[in-house]
């Protein structure tokens, strides 16, 4: 018997004896379903994380820091949602890898596949933002539900209260400093202004400032009034933080202040004098 026939006989004998069996078609069906399901889930998560990234930029007001110049860049970098971006990129990479494993996509060029994925994720992520999914995320974020607990680590990174930047609701105004409410609590903001502030700061205003945190105090180099609609995430955080606390807002003792170039109140008028 030839060598070729021997091998054929050996294998066929194992098959007929039942030593080698056909794997069930349902196993392959489940495998295929699992792979396609994982791919779909990864793409959905990438879209969701891109949406969260857009939501963060839109609602946490960190882009405003860039209008402060050099100091603002440091604050912007400090508040940049790195974790969100890293998780988004990881899901995008995983989706690219899984699509290569898919028998419908391996013939396509890898760069084209990644480009198509990026376009799909950006388009659908932006579409979700347009649909107003933000409001739901905002509600979930400050809820005690499991989704809120999952989302928090991605957003809580110095929300409104950082080493180089500060944002919050003015609670008390003094000649040389302010007390503001942030999602983390009350914060003393001491004026060390490099540029005079041209706006009148009053209790109930929302402010955004760049500077430096030393100990418990924040030394503000630049300060701006900001519309609360530009920072809804911080506004909501403050609302949640102080919901059950009795608001204690005292009027500033020396209001309006005397001529003082470091004073934020009516500074423009003071300078013109």
């Amino acid at each position, binding site marked *: 018997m030839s*060598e*070729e026939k021997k091998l*054929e006989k050996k294998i066929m004998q194992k098959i007929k004896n039942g030593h*080698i069996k056909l794997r069930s078609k349902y196993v392959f069906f489940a495998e295929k379903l699992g792979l396609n399901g994982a791919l779909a889930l990864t793409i959905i998560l990438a879209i969701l994380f891109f949406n969260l990234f857009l939501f963060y930029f839109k609602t946490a007001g960190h882009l405003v820091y860039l209008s402060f110049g050099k100091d603002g860049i440091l604050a912007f970098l400090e508040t940049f949602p790195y974790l969100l971006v890293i998780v988004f990129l990881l899901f995008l990479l995983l989706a690219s890898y899984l699509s290569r494993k898919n028998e419908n996509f391996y*013939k396509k060029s890898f760069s084209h596949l990644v480009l198509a994925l990026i376009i799909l994720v950006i388009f659908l992520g932006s579409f979700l933002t347009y649909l107003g999914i933000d409001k739901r995320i905002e509600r979930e974020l400050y809820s005690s539900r499991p989704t809120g607990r999952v989302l928090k680590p991605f957003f809580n990174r110095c929300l409104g209260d950082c080493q180089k930047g500060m944002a919050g609701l003015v609670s008390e105004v003094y000649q040389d400093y302010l007390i503001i409410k942030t999602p983390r609590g009350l914060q003393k903001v001491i004026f060390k202004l490099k540029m005079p502030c041209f706006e009148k700061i009053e209790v109930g205003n929302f402010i955004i400032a760049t500077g430096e945190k030393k100990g418990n105090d924040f030394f503000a180099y630049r300060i701006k009034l900001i519309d609360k609609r530009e920072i809804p995430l911080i506004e909501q955080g403050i609302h949640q933080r102080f919901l059950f606390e009795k608001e204690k807002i005292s009027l500033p003792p020396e209001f309006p202040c005397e001529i003082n170039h470091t004073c934020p109140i009516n500074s423009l008028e003071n300078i013109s004098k």
Partner: protein
Amino acid sequence: MQINELTDEKLVKKIREENIDFYGLIIERYQQKLSHYLRKFTNDPDEREDILQIVFIKVYRNLHSFNIKKKFSSWIYRVAHNQGIDFLKKHAHQEISLESVEYKVIDENIDLSRDFDKSILEEKIRTAFNEIKLKYREPLVLFFFEEKSYEEISDILRIPQNTVGTLISRGKKEIKNILEQKLIR
């Protein structure tokens, strides 16, 4: 229609749904082809037979995963290819062997700038083939020695067709460079 006249894909359908005995025909059809292909992974006939046996067993066990709308030959070559790569990983210093007809194929396709002594050229071609990266060697072997089309190579190696063309062209260039360096020395 006689069972022998059935296409591979129809035969697979029959094995899956009617009679497992027909699997012997698949072995008959592919044993020699795959054995030839596996020579590019090992020179040892016993090792080759072991790999071949594993390939046919894997193919049989996973027959339900084959999509009969696709080409069976590409699928079985892919299983053999993966098994060959596994073997190479375990035996890192395997040298591939080439047949005289294959030397001719390479000689015709690599446009060397000078004529060289045939026996020297054959030896150099063999060593050059062993020296090029595996990612170039795989499509070159399938294209020149197994006479597979770009589409089939794309299915076997699971890479886009454009990439197959690029790898073959770069592989040829690399072999040419190695040969010219070796032959000038």
